[in-house]
């Protein structure tokens, strides 16, 4: 029992290197893979809307289930921008285009824009783990995708 400090330090280091390091590595990768999966789901959903020119409650429910099936708890918001073309009051004969947010998002016209925003609520397990173990702050997940109805 001559070198008690060295033994304790070795045990702590061995624990960190053999347990915490691989575990936090794996959780970090999992977290980022989940983010990518959610991004893909959003892209699919936007594609679905802009190609089919329609959105139903069922589509929406499917989308919510799809993004909820990964790690982070996320909130999704679908916004429909209606295209408005009006005569320009400043110069006669010309028009200007503006996009106005519409309440009814189950009926789409060609030229409308759809914007799907997904943002994370709270902190995920991996985020907290990485924060606690290696002190790395992983920013919250926030993703937006927009497209034009064909």
């Amino acid at each position, binding site marked *: 029992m*001559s070198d008690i400090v*060295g033994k304790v330090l*070795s045990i702590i280091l061995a624990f*960190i290197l053999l347990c915490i390091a691989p575990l936090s590595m794996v959780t*970090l990768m999992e977290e980022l893979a989940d983010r990518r999966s959610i991004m893909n789901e959003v892209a699919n959903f936007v594609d679905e809307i802009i190609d089919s020119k329609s959105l139903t409650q069922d589509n929406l429910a499917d989308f919510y289930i799809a993004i909820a099936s990964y790690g982070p708890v996320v909130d999704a918001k679908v916004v429909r921008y209606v295209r408005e073309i009006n005569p320009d009051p400043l110069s006669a004969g010309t028009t200007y285009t503006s996009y106005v947010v519409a309440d009814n998002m189950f009926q789409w016209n060609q030229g409308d824009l759809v914007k799907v*925003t997904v943002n994370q609520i709270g902190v995920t397990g991996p985020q907290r783990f990485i924060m606690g173990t290696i002190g790395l702050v992983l920013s919250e997940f926030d993703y937006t*995708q927009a497209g034009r109805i064909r």
Partner: protein
Amino acid sequence: MNRLTGMILVVPLFFLVMSFLLYLTMLNDELERLEQFRLTKSINYAVDAAVDEMINTGDLGMDYVDIKKMTVDPRVALDTFISVFLLNYDLYYSDRSIVPQNLGTVYGDDNKNTVLYQYLPVFIVAVYDGFYVFEESKLTTTGGVGLLKQGIEDGVSYPFVATPKLPYTYRDSYNGDLYALNLGLENCIKLSNGSMTKVDLPFTCENGTKVFDVTENKVYINQRVSDEMMYRLDKHFEGGFTSNFYIPYEMTTITSVNAIEGPTVLALLRDVDLTTRYKLSSFAIGGSEVENQRMIAAYNRDGKDRYAYHDLLPAGFTSYVIEMFTTPMEAAEAGYYHDELYMN
């Protein structure tokens, strides 16, 4: 702690530090890849929207004489591209150059001009018989109000403007004849000794040694656009552009890039750092295909309303046609029956 343990402990400490560094690089790489994914998706949606908006706006002036010929407004494509791209980053299309002219100098520091001047070095709209290139061009104005880039002295502005329509040209290296190609892939205009003639594809050129067919036409159109894009990029970047651009004339498994075959929008975004500290670049090409519509003619034959494809009807039958449809479904919905005599 004796000296030996201390020396040995340096090794795991080294591993610990290295694993932290590994984390950070991995995290950086992965976050950069996610941002690249976002940028690629955004630019693709924006280019698709630009093409679609351009095609669906106004009168395209199409007819059956010149296949695929249409007139479009490239400005619409640029505006749509920017608005959809901005929305992908949760930003809104703001254009302060819309303010009345008498309010003084307008500086381009809104969202639209940020994209134009910082991220979009070149934007190409390729149409039937030529293409437009949008880029910053130096413009010296005297006392006028222009769209000025920040930090530039008064009187000199760098508006993001389109060139006149540049034709797809091919020069015969033997006798210097100039051919203006088009995307219709049926004919082209030949300029020889000051006279213009219409030449049908395929034709022979280069003193009869070369047959210029549809494939050659596609090759030269795509090459012309890639060369022009390369030239503009080279001019735009100080010290030249180090990468190389090449648009293939046909989509293959190797290139996996669509060729220019119809009205097309090409956009290159570089150094985009809207949501990240990495400077990301992406390129997208979006196109549309124009097809001939095979019209359905509806008529009354032997006391019954029937329909058939217009081109299948015998000569002289046209005067009996009551109305025209674009699809058999529409004809059937209007109460016409499939005419087995002419359709089969």
